[in-house]
């Protein structure tokens, strides 16, 4: 999962990025409003953490611009303004959640995950495909009741595919959602990770779940 953190306080943005990365997220940072808006409009994110008090354009304005352009990415407002009035204003403009500073980091992660789940229409943190279970809370996967050890990147790719199961995901989309934006990467890396995942998930099972769609990408689905 890839998130954008728009926060002018660099120390805060950096520690959030570090923390989210340790939760298998990929995070881009923007320290001012205009850049933040540009990034949110240009790249595809699974969620945006948006500070309200920003130099340039403020968070509320960024949010309403995004919603005006029908960019429906989940937005979590992060702000020092804790007044109920401000929180309502944020939610009315289309924010998915409102987190007053200072916050508990684990709670922030949980709320980001929950916002993403709600957005993809999957209220449960467990994604089940046949006998494969992906737990987006603990970042673990099981197949047939057996834990599958996964590296952080492998898990990220699996989670993205599982969150969009039964849909073909291109290599580019996968890269966009599991790597930082300015990460210059050969899309073959994805093929390598897909191979690792196949070995761990499908090996030894009769019904394969990860499929290659020639010329399009990959799909995670049950075979009939």
């Amino acid at each position, binding site marked *: 999962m890839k998130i954008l953190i728009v926060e*002018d*306080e*660099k*120390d*805060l943005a950096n*520690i*959030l990025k*570090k*923390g989210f990365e*340790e939760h298998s997220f990929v995070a881009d940072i923007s320290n001012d409003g205009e850049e933040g808006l540009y990034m949110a409009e240009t790249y595809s994110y699974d969620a945006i953490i948006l500070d309200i*008090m920003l*130099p340039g354009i403020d968070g509320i304005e960024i949010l309403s611009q995004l919603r005006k352009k029908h960019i429906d990415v989940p937005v979590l407002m992060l*702000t*020092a*303004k*804790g007044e109920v009035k401000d929180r309502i204003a944020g939610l009315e403009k289309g924010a998915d959640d409102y987190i*007053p*500073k*200072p*916050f*508990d*980091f*684990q709670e922030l992660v949980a709320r980001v995950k929950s916002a993403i789940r709600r957005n993809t229409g999957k209220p449960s943190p467990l994604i089940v495909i046949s006998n494969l279970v992906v737990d987006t809370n603990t970042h673990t996967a099981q197949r047939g009741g057996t834990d599958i050890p996964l590296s952080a990147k492998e898990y990220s790719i699996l989670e993205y595919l599982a969150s969009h199961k039964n849909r073909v995901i291109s290599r580019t989309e996968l890269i966009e959602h599991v790597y930082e934006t300015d990460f210059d990467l050969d899309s073959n890396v994805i093929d390598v990770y897909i191979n690792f995942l196949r070995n761990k998930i499908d090996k030894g099972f009769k019904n394969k779940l990860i499929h290659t769609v020639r010329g399009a990408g990959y799909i995670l689905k049950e075979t009939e």
Partner: protein
Amino acid sequence: MKLFLKSIKGRLFLWIFIVVSLILITSGVLVYYEVKNVVVSSVDEVLHSDMQIFTGLLHVKRGKVEFEFSDIISGDYTIPLSGHYYKIIINNNVFAASPSLVDNTYDIASGRLESFDQKNKISIYASKGPGNEPIRVMRQDLTMFGIPVTMFAARSMAESFSMLNRLMIFFIFSIPATIIIIGIVSVLIAKRSLSPLDKFSSDISNITHRNLSNRIETLGQSAELQGLSESFNQMLDRLERAFEAEKRIVSDASHELKTPVAVIRSNCDVTLAKERPAGEYIDALQKIRNTSAHMGKIVTDMLLLARLDSGSVAFAEFSPVKLSECANNAVALVNVLAQDRGVEINMSVDEEIWVNGNKEQLTEAFLNMLENAVNYNKANGSVDIHITKAGGKAVLSFADTGSGISKADLSRIFDRFFRSEETRSKAGSGLGLSIAKTIIEAHSGEIKVKSQPGIGSIFTLILPQLPED
């Protein structure tokens, strides 16, 4: 009732009531007596001419006094109790009397003596006539043909008095009625002309801190109230601005404090989430230390500002302060920082200037100016402090070789928590210039700034100097 008389309405009514009553009653009384005078003196004139006629009718014929008969003494004088009477007494005997008297021995001059004319021996009496009617009687004593003659002429006053009575009755009823009507009208007028005041007061009482942007309607008001409303609205403008500024400061302060708390908290949360190599703990602790130091600076500055705002810079406690001494102290305090950054501080003093003020606070103000000048200077730059006099005032300037301030930011640099894009990343509370400004203004001074981006800024502090004696 007590309340009514305390109100403007009540007082207006009371004054109008008293004044109108006094005027009407006095003029009623004056008119009554004036009319009475006119009536009485016209009767007296008639009696005078009667008397002359009667005198002219007295003759001596063949050694005998005779009262000539004439048309003049016929008519009314012959009708009994007609109110026209005369009587002539010679040698204490009734010589002639009008038949209207009925009984010619009736003493018509038995009443009160009203006036007496010594020279002409004329007296006037207010008396009762034979028909018990009020009469006015003129008596003249004269000597005719060597014989003492006393003549009386009288006229009834019944008609005149009844006219005067009617006048009095008219006044007795009309004056109180007029007073009551004027009283009611004055209350109504007062009520009507003061009714905008009630609206005004309810308008004012409806304004609270929640709707401080509401204003009182000034259009269509009377001139006095319009002035009042306008002044009131101006006061509301000032209040609203102060209130908004206060609100913004609280909101800014909460942002300025909550964000570093969030940084500290998140560093702790993330770092403690799992076992890490020692280096990462050190990094996190460094971040936390720096952030809390920054917070500490903000808290100190905020508390200082709050103290300044609450008026602790008391003019009464001011004493003569030597400007160069404050400046020297400030330089000493900022020296380590300046050496770290390789910034050179020069000071030139044209002449020693004393001002009336608080030494510590002036030093604080200068220190804030100097810290900015050093912090935002270029490496190996300089700060020039210049103390001089201009236009009878003390002038102290800080010129730096820093990055300068953009035009857009220039008007906002004294705002609390304002930090330009360039200075955001650096340490600082965003309150230093606000503190300096508050202190200088409490000393009846002002701060001016000139800046050229890329070249540097000059901050000039102007203070009233202490008169030399």
